[in-house]
């Protein structure tokens, strides 16, 4: 069984990282938002990096969510008749997306650097440790979120239009969080906490710029870190409980048949 899972993991890791859709999304978001940030909005680079990267992550996990739903029939078959461990199967998907998210971060960063440099706005003051941690934590949280959204959707909605909508659910969740979270709670909402952590990693814990996520004037780095870690752990635990849903009716299957 370990061999089956390692073949599957290698296959999806290769195809996800080399996926034209992922590369296009990273390049597209990187170029679009860095141009807006550097030339139009003239916002600080940290703010635009955190926004660009998080939007990219939430778009990417739309694909992960869809992958869980579309693949649920095959997962069901492999778990039930080939004895594949469901937790390890889902972990293979989770780790794939964590690695992919980390791999694409430098590409987006480079695009932003280039654009800000050409616009003459490049001011660097990077805390590498916080930035790296922020990228890893954001990747872990969004991947866990993509898995759980996919598992929740399996077998629940059988409206034929829903499959088109699935891809956009994480992005909608992201924008709702940004606009609906009050400043006093923004460090406790993992989605806004991710944005905050990514942004402050550039300024050693201080955020002197006006920022699109409502937040208090001083940020204790540990609060968003703990918020993201605890939320990711909870999401993964609930995902383990939701794994039985893999055995339920595949909504794509139903949508295609009725």
């Amino acid at each position: 069984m370990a061999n089956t899972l390692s073949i599957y993991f290698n296959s999806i890791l290769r195809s996800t990282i080399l996926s034209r859709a992922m590369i296009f999304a990273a390049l597209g978001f990187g170029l679009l938002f860095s141009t807006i940030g550097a030339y139009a909005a003239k916002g600080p680079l940290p703010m635009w990096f955190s926004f660009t990267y998080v939007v990219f992550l939430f778009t990417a996990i739309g694909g992960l969510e869809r992958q869980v739903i579309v693949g649920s029939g095959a997962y069901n078959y492999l778990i039930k008749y080939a004895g594949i461990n469901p937790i390890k199967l889902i972990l293979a998907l989770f780790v794939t997306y964590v690695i992919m998210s980390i791999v694409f971060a430098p590409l987006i960063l480079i695009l932003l650097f280039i654009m800000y440099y050409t616009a003459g706005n490049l001011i660097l003051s990077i805390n590498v440790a916080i930035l790296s941690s922020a990228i890893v934590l954001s990747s872990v949280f969004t991947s866990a979120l993509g898995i759980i959204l996919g598992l929740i959707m399996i077998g629940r909605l059988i409206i034929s239009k829903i499959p088109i909508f699935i891809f956009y659910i994480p992005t909608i969740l992201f924008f709702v969080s940004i606009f609906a979270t009050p400043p006093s709670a923004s460090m406790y909402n993992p989605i806004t906490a991710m944005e905050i952590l990514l942004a402050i990693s550039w300024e050693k814990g201080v955020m002197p710029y006006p920022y699109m996520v409502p937040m208090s004037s001083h940020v204790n780095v540990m609060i968003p870190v703990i918020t993201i870690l605890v939320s990711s752990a909870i999401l993964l635990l609930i995902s383990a409980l939701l794994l039985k849903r893999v055995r339920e009716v595949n909504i794509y299957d139903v949508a295609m048949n009725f």
Partner: protein
Amino acid sequence: MISIKDLKVVFNDRVVLSVPNAIFNNNSIILGPNGSGKTTLLKTIVGFYKQSQGTIEVDGVDINRAPTLRLLSTNIETAYILPGTRLEDLVKIYCSAFNCNIKEAQQLLSYIKPKAKELWKLSTGEKKWFTTILALYADTKVTLLDEPFEDLDPGLVRKLVEEIHKFSRLKQIVLTLHSVYLLKEFNDWDLFFIFDGVVYGSIKSQEVFNMEIVAGSDPASILTFKFHGEEYSLVKNGGKGIPIREISDIAQLYARSKLG
């Protein structure tokens, strides 16, 4: 052996499948027109659709309660859609998972030369060939094949018939068909009919070529079934109805639903 009791599958308050009692003891064919419930039946046996009531046992194992490791395999496409996985990896994954002989399976898969690298990009016939070979080569007690010959070239149909016969000596195979002419390839198999989500049978496949379908309930009927709300009987040839040997595709019955 597959044993089904009081099975009902309901979607959107509509009963799409109803099997009061059916036992598939041997290699079996389920013959029915398009939309009669063949695929729904197989998907329910595999577990892709949840039944509203009833039990399904495969080799004495309740598929919804007991461990089902290596119990059955199927060629239903849903079982092979692993997004982001290339064809060559898919073969390795399924051969490793179901303990099949990868070299022999790859040799048969090479009968098709797909240009695409992912399953969803293959043509319908290529997908059918690919999934059917993987299902046949899986080391399981039962293999369920949904319309295995559909959209295949005649040469592939011939080869697949040979392969199915080869594996039918090693494990039980249940396949669905809507083409009557292919029945002659499986003379000694049990034949079940399915109309409007109800399973009827069984008779031996070879017997069907000496039978005809007549409207109404005939006292000499070997089997009666309901089709589009009307009752029909399967009787021995007597010149009263439509001889089955003259029907190439069971779906033609839709065009002749008033048989008289």
